[in-house]
């Protein structure tokens, strides 16, 4: 049964969003906001590289706000490179549906699934020459907190520059199931790209603090 265009988009968005969320351990809305636009990146690729695939065309996709500005693309490379397998690229190349139907491969065909045994949230406490000390908190609360010295060689070049006291990262260990069905053991350490403090936030905090101090009678 064919789904209406908008339903297809919605379904696709939901699936893609859940895939990214499942795999990336991103819990806070601040970072999620950044990731959601990236979900459309591969759709953008479909349109640009296969402009004749659908009758909707690139303009329609832009109207639907599926095209993200180029500037944002680099932020989300990590997602595509880490979690979205290149096999999907091949599938789309080989099985281009006829116009005007937009073809979306079944979820199990196009995704890389990650089944984690453990997901830690880590905070950097100290940095040494070849490693950093961190506190690891099991995100499922199944095991007690741990403190580990993680080797810097385990961190990607892109993430090395993010290591600082207080920097937050996620460490997932589990199985990665590729679209072809093959499974590989996987350990992913990914540092959060946290935004900077904005002057408005600090002013807001200052106002709240003044209000609190007055209310507490210690202003």
């Amino acid at each position, binding site marked *: 049964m064919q789904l209406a265009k908008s339903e297809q988009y919605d379904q696709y968005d939901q699936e893609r969003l859940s895939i990214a969320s499942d795999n990336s351990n991103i*819990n*806070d809305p*601040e970072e999620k906001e950044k990731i959601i636009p990236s979900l459309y990146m591969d759709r953008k690729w479909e349109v640009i590289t296969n402009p004749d695939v659908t009758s909707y065309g690139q303009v329609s996709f832009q109207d639907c706000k599926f095209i993200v500005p180029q500037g944002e693309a680099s932020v989300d490379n990590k997602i595509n490179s880490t979690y979205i397998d290149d096999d999907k690229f091949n599938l789309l190349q080989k099985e281009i549906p006829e116009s005007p139907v937009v073809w979306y491969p079944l979820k199990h065909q196009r995704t890389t699934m990650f089944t984690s*045994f*453990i997901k830690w949230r880590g*905070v*950097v*406490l*100290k940095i040494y020459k*070849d*490693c950093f*000390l961190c*506190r690891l908190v099991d995100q499922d*609360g199944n*095991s*007690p*907190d*741990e*403190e*580990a*010295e*993680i*080797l810097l060689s*385990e961190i990607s070049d892109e993430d090395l520059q993010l290591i*600082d*006291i*207080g*920097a*937050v990262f996620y460490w997932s*260990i*589990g*199985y990665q199931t590729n679209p072809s069905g093959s499974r590989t*053991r996987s*350990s992913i*350490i990914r540092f959060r790209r*946290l*935004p*900077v*403090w*904005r*002057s408005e*936030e*600090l002013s*807001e*905090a*200052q106002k*709240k*603090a*003044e209000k*609190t*101090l007055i*209310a*507490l*009678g*210690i202003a």
Partner: protein
Amino acid sequence: MLTPPLNEEVEISIFGPGYGECILIHIGFNDWIIIDSCINPSSKEPCAVEYLSNIGVPLDTDVKLIIATHWHDDHIRGIGKIVSTCSNATFVCSDGLLTKEFVTFIKAYGARPGLTEGVNEFDIVLKSLETSHRTPKYASAEKALWKRNGPNGKPPCCITALSPADFAIHLSKIQLKELFPQENTTKRDVVAPQPNNVAVVIWIEVGDIYLLLGSDLENSPDKRHGWAAIVDSNLRPEGIASVFKIPHHGSKNADLPEVWEKMLIKNPLAVMTPFSKGNVSLPTLEDINRIKSQTSEGYITAPPRVKRVKKPKIVEQFVKGATKSIYQANSFFGHARFRADLKSLPIDWKTELFQSATSLNSLKV
């Protein structure tokens, strides 16, 4: 079997380290003091709230004082819930802590739930105080925090802070200023600064019983603060304590022989919680032997270093390949309870140990 203390009994209960420690004191006649907070790893509830509820203590009326000796994460987990539940208790924190800079810092980080638990706890505390129109009390050296004059046959009780010294408060204010986030700097978790200059040491006098609760105060080469400042002070309350909460998890840098000589009876009841951070584990074997040389009545709420809980093989393989070392941060959780009759002299402490709590003499290190 958990039963409440009798009216004329003093109780000291020490919990930890669910990550941190918590001390509960019954000063007789249903008056309770809570010092710091930790979470019971099984129930995920603040130990103080859980224990007092279990023994039938009404939290809103019987808890008189809640003291946060310092704002390190391992001493304030769950304190927000304690402050909101014990709605009539006075909240005490170190002088110099609630500066405009620190409260702004709390408000900035508090608006980002999930980033830093310790800071969020303090934000909950401030909100609870604000909604219940309570003004916090500041603790500083030689300052009385709470007093019961002893009407109706109740024994008099006085709770006094022995630290922080004025100089430590000054140092702390400088330290806290540095924590304040600057515009355009990356948001990160807060890692509490070291050293901890403003830990609140508490002296409790109830009837003829004296207690010295050492918090995490360490020695300083500068005698204007740290343990030397307390020992040398001629303003501190008189008396020698029969119970000592050993400071800073028994570490050598928090041990001053003069404290044992001048402020404690011989062979006092001494109790502590363990601590571990990375490859640092307290107390060390040397610490335990040093404390045992001072008293035969030493207790700890859990063994200082425990083996990691093993995870699935695949996890262990990756962990082994990616780390130089890994340790379990939280040791087993335990509860050490001491009770004494206010009227009996000499004071006879009845010791009860729950879960992983043990005496130093029977500890296998």
